[in-house]
């Protein structure tokens, strides 16, 4: 067990495989101070509702939200099969309201009902809230491919608010993920949380890629299935392999370091290929529209970029950061595992208390891949 306490933000992590033992360690790490918002991320090997109930019992006035993951981390380390958690008190979060959107009865109905409920709970239309004092968190199930639709509806309903978050994982089984919030849980839906923040805050988005100078046009795609069938009018596998300079049979091995993406104002926005599809297609971790020109990317310095992102957030907060909730792509975790840089990743936070998990996709403006997103909270003037 490990836990960190600052004046305001508490994080804790347990690697214990037994849920009761892990809960005890996390509760010890978070301490007794009241939290307005309590967040947890847990391996699907743990009993998520049991974890949520224990945290709610310790923090009865808090909004407790969480999801299953593909690994979890705090500033003290990253691992799998455990639990990470954070408690954010009223010095940081003055108000938190959560709703669970269940899509099992239909996506549109489920999301519309949840967003209406969120506005009712808040007592104010989301589009009229001050974006400098409010931020949203979106935890989505990671196996039904609803993230783009959720982001679009959030963008329409709350165009001035920032929602950040990630897609729940299941330790790479890609079978079933769970999101938890508002005292409920679902394997097909999302938990949306609106926060009123008492301190300055800033959003981070970091990914370590640069374009190699080759652009590929998506000429045939099945958007709903997230499959690209043709690039530049040729079978996607064949053209992609040629662009990255590998044999088509070896293309899947190149996905992690050579994804596709868009460059917007000098920043890469990644679309990650997931697997080859029989017939020459490639399935992606997010939707790719026909007609889009995408750059072939190449990985750079993941750890250095992470460090720069956190340092940049600190600077934007006047050097006064108190903690962060972070959402890190599973592909970045796998890259770190392969390169032996997991410890360097958490060291890149520079001692900033954080709570995060390794995701099946990240949300910020839209649904993106191979990226670290999150929100970094500052400090009040008196702390």
């Amino acid at each position, binding site marked *: 067990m490990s836990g960190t306490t600052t004046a305001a933000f508490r994080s804790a992590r347990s690697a214990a495989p037994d849920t009761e033992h892990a809960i005890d360690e996390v509760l010890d790490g978070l301490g007794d101070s009241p939290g307005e918002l309590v967040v947890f991320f847990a391996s699907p090997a743990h009993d998520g509702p049991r974890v949520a109930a224990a945290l709610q019992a310790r923090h009865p006035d808090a909004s407790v939200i969480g999801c299953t993951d593909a690994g979890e981390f705090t500033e003290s380390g990253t691992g799998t099969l455990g639990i990470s958690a954070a408690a954010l008190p009223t010095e940081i979060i003055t108000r938190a309201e959560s709703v669970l959107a269940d899509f099992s009865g239909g996506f549109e109905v489920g999301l519309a009902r949840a967003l209406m409920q969120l506005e009712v709970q808040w007592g104010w239309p989301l589009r009229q809230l001050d974006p400098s004092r409010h931020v949203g968190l979106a935890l989505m199930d990671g196996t039904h491919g609803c993230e783009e639709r959720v982001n679009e509806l959030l963008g329409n309903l709350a165009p001035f608010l920032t929602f950040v978050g990630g897609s729940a994982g299941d330790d790479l089984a890609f079978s079933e993920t769970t999101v938890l919030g508002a005292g409920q849980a679902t394997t097909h839906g999302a938990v949306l949380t609106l926060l009123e923040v008492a301190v300055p805050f800033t959003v981070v988005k970091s990914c370590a890629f640069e374009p190699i100078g080759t652009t590929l046009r998506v000429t045939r795609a099945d958007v709903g299935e997230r499959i690209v069938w043709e690039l530049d009018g040729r079978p996607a596998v064949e053209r992609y392999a040629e662009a990255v300079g590998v044999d088509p049979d070896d293309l899947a091995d190149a996905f992690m370091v050579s994804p596709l993406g*868009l460059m*917007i104002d000098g920043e890469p926005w990644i679309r990650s290929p997931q697997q080859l599809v029989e017939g020459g297609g490639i399935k992606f971790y997010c939707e790719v*529209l026909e007609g*889009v*020109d*995408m750059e072939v990317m190449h990985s750079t310095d993941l750890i250095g970029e992470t460090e720069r992102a956190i340092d940049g957030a600190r600077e934007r907060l006047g050097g006064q950061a108190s903690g962060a909730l972070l959402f890190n792509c599973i592909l970045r975790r796998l890259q770190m595992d392969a390169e032996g840089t997991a410890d360097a990743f958490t060291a890149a936070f520079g001692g900033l208390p954080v709570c995060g998990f390794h995701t099946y996709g990240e949300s910020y403006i839209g649904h993106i891949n191979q990226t670290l997103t999150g929100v970094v909270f500052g400090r009040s003037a008196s702390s």
Partner: protein
Amino acid sequence: MAPKLPDIIAALQQDMGPAEVHALALRVRLNTGVDILGADAPASPDTETLERVMGALAAMGHDVSPAL
């Protein structure tokens, strides 16, 4: 005559203010790769590009075709 990007922007501005259009434009760019409002907006986008933008807008809940 085929619509131009300014026509699409004008259609959007019938229902939303400049800040909301700006926010929407970023989401359109993330989906389509096409800058419809900023410094990288194409001066004379081809029909295919315009159709792609309008299709993306419609999918995002902003069908501008009736206003064009």
